[in-house]
């Protein structure tokens, strides 16, 4: 067993406000875990408790079998990458990278080699003599990344490292971080509010809300099988219907859907959720045979939004609005128009069902 990081009933209260509420998690060595949640959900507080900059109100942080609650930050040897880069403006790129090695009093030779190695890792060798202010945001964050990696930390913590960057650089740097993580096999904990970022980068995603872990799982699980309407809504886009379940049927205000996945849910009030790309769109005469008739509905295309690879149709459905995404190629082939009347099909197995009693939506 490697040097795992374990959170046990970790709790943080600021006065009467509970920012983090009895959370539990085991992170294995070499794993890439992402904390995802809306702002104010407590994800940064969890990270700051792990770094040691925030005190723990209750519970334990255990690293490599030892409780580290009371260990001061500089003894934890966890590297941190900040949203604001936090490079030392008075030092050059190489001085920044060497800082953590210098304060540890490593031999000069070793520091030089390590700095070179780090610069190569992010391809910034020719920028080494420059000051942070002379670099672009993306370059600065690369320097911050290898500065944190230089002392070979046990765990690397990244606090919304890409939020301050342009969309394009964000995607590129995201891939770079992922590559580094796979190369170095370093345990990384990454905090973000961007669900696309979380799903694309992490081995495991922790979805947080109101100080609690709502769901922990692989990105694909989180997306395909959210365990609550909150997760279904926060991660990706979903259409929601409110209804009452009775066997494999859910009665909404206007419709009566057949559903396929409802395993352990009790009968009664439920939320139905369906991803926009799962809804199928047909012209009136084109409906194939063998579809579940009760899951068909007639609507009118209200708005067509071009998203690039996909096209989003906002469809008016007798007082309800449903969005459906179809891939661009198919949209061009079928030439849907605004105002056109269409048939929507909601496949029973595409419906996600959540109890409405939890009240999280």
């Amino acid at each position, binding site marked *: 067993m490697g040097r795992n990081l374990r959170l046990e009933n970790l709790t943080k209260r600021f006065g009467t406000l509970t920012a983090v509420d009895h959370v539990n998690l085991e992170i294995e060595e070499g794993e890439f875990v992402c904390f995802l949640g809306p702002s104010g959900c407590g994800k940064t507080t969890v990270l700051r408790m792990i770094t040691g*900059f925030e005190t723990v109100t209750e519970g334990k942080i255990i690293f490599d079998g030892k*409780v580290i609650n*009371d260990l001061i930050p500089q003894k934890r040897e966890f590297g941190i990458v900040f949203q604001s880069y*936090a490079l030392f403006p008075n030092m050059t790129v190489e001085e920044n990278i060497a800082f953590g090695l210098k304060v540890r009093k490593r031999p000069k030779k070793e520091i030089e080699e390590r700095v070179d190695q780090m610069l190569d890792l992010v391809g910034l060798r020719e920028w080494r003599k420059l000051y942070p202010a002379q670099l672009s945001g993306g370059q600065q964050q690369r320097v911050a990344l290898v500065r944190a990696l230089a002392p070979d930390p046990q765990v690397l913590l990244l606090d919304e490292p890409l939020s301050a960057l342009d969309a394009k650089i964000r995607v590129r740097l995201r891939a770079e971080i992922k590559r580094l993580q796979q190369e170095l096999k370093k345990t990384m904990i990454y905090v973000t509010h961007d669900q696309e970022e979380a799903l694309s980068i992490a081995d495991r995603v922790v979805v947080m809300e109101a100080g609690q872990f709502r769901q922990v799982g692989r990105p694909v699980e989180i997306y395909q099988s959210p365990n609550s309407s909150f997760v279904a809504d926060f991660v990706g886009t979903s259409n929601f219907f409110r209804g009452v379940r009775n066997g494999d049927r859910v009665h909404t205000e206007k419709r009566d859907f057949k559903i396929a996945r409802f395993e352990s849910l009790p009968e009664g009030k439920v939320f139905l959720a369906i991803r926009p790309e799962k809804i199928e769109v047909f012209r009136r005469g084109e409906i194939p045979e063998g579809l579940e008739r009760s899951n068909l509905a007639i609507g009118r295309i209200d708005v067509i939004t071009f998203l690039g690879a996909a096209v989003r149709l906002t469809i008016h459905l007798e007082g309800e609005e449903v969005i459906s995404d179809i891939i661009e190629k198919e949209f061009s082939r079928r030439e849907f128009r605004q105002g056109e009347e269409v048939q929507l099909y909601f496949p029973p197995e595409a419906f996600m069902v959540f109890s409405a009693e939890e009240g999280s939506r």
Partner: protein
Amino acid sequence: MKLKKEGQGLTFSAPVSSERWLVWMTMGILLAILAFFMLYPVYDICKLSFLKGGTFTLKNYQSYFSNPRMFRSLTNSLYVSLVTTAITTFFAFFFAYGLTRTTIPGKNIFYTISTFPLIAPSIIQGLALILLFGRNGLITRYLLHTDWNIYGATGIIVAECLYCFPNALFILYTTLSAVDTRLDEAAQSLGASALRTFFKVTLPSAKYGIASAAALVFNLTITDFGVPVVIGGNYNVLATEIYQQVIGMQRFDLGATISVILLIPSVGAFLLNYYLTKKSYALISGQARPFLQPSRPFKKWAFTIYCWIPTTFILIVFITVFLGSFVKTWPYDFTLTLQHFDFPSLGGNAPLWTRFWSSVLEGQWRSLIAYKYAPIWNSLWVSVLVALGGASLTLLAGYLIEKKRPGGVEILYTLSVLPAAIPGTVMGLGYILAFNKPYFFIYGTFWIIIINIIICNFTLGTLSSIANLKQIDRSIEEAAISLGADPIKTFTQVVFPLTKTAFFSNITFFFMRAMTTISAVIFLVSAKVKLAAIEIIFLDIDGRTASANAMCTIIIVLVVAMLVVMRLITGKSGLKGMSVTA
């Protein structure tokens, strides 16, 4: 063992314990310094004014209010302060308006000249007015042949207006340049006339700034000692009355009583200023200032001429005192001479300085440099130590207040900003009462003077440190810590280099204050320890006006030299954004 761990987790966990300890210790030391050298003297003053023979009494206050001559110092103080406040705020506002809202030429010249009064002791305005309008004034005696002279309320008011002008200007300049000019443009685009825009938009948006400048001027005037002592004549104000009672009559109890009376308006004005400054900053939009439209010719010319008025007055003050120190007999004989720089024997010596020059020089030069210039050397030495000590302590205080925020930091903050509320003369008297004791060995040495000047100017030093530290992102420090740097390395290698500019400008500020301050240290100088700025007063009282001018000139030259040096070091003007309180 396991239980114990859990118990700790539940009650109080402090992952930053070793650092905590250092922070607490530093805060404890700062609190102790401020309490001992600021609160304790003020406490002693209150005690002396209310206690007689160990019992509480209002007898001192009775004798103050029943003596018409003494009581007049209160009404006199209020009168000159209110008039000065009104005049200065008015003039400074339109001056600031001209600099920020019009496109007049020569803004930099106006701004620079208007800051001149900060580099000289407040007494310089008094000296200049006496040279021009005194009993032997160039204008009164020589040109107009009149017996009228400026001594008294008029002199005090004119001199204080000049002295307070840059201080009010800083606040109003900041206010007016921060308030969004697009509001004005919006109002005018909606059809409001220029005048209407001014009264309905510009003025209301600057109201807190105006009020805060007024409160500051009031505080500066009512606490000033240098101006009334040279130009007040028989017109006594609270600050001079304290000195009179203590040094002239040895009535420490009455001095303490007047001090408490002076504390009321001065603390009041300070609190008002403080409160209004906060309000005023809340109005600042922080948006980039858009392009200023060229002013219409009439507005441009009117403001150019207007701005020359206070600027000219300030220039005249400096030129007059400069000239006064180089001409033979003002205003009758304008032959240039250096004789006034050969000061009468002032007594006092500066140990190292005197010994060194005595061994190097002979005869006349020896007595001049080794003995007569000793106060100047003392002043320089004191100023350098004040600059280093003051800048370091206020940086530390600012660092704790802004970045570390340990429990009870509010107390440190309150004590750090409080000194500006306490008039210098009160602080000076408090020091005599509290520290003139045989066992308090640094009393009577220049160390007590150094401490006093640092404490008296603690407020502005701390506030500017805080303002600067605010600009350093918290995560920069956390980055250093997470990379393994201990608290001391974090401070010396990361935080300090980032605050260097502010630190140097604080050094300049403390140096300037130490060279020019009068009100508190006048109680602390002695026959052995003399300071240049104080000697101006004694020379003036002795009737050696020309030598007083010469001493003033030397101080200005030294301060300017310091500004030049600091500018060379930092590449920035040391005066920018610096305001002086108390």
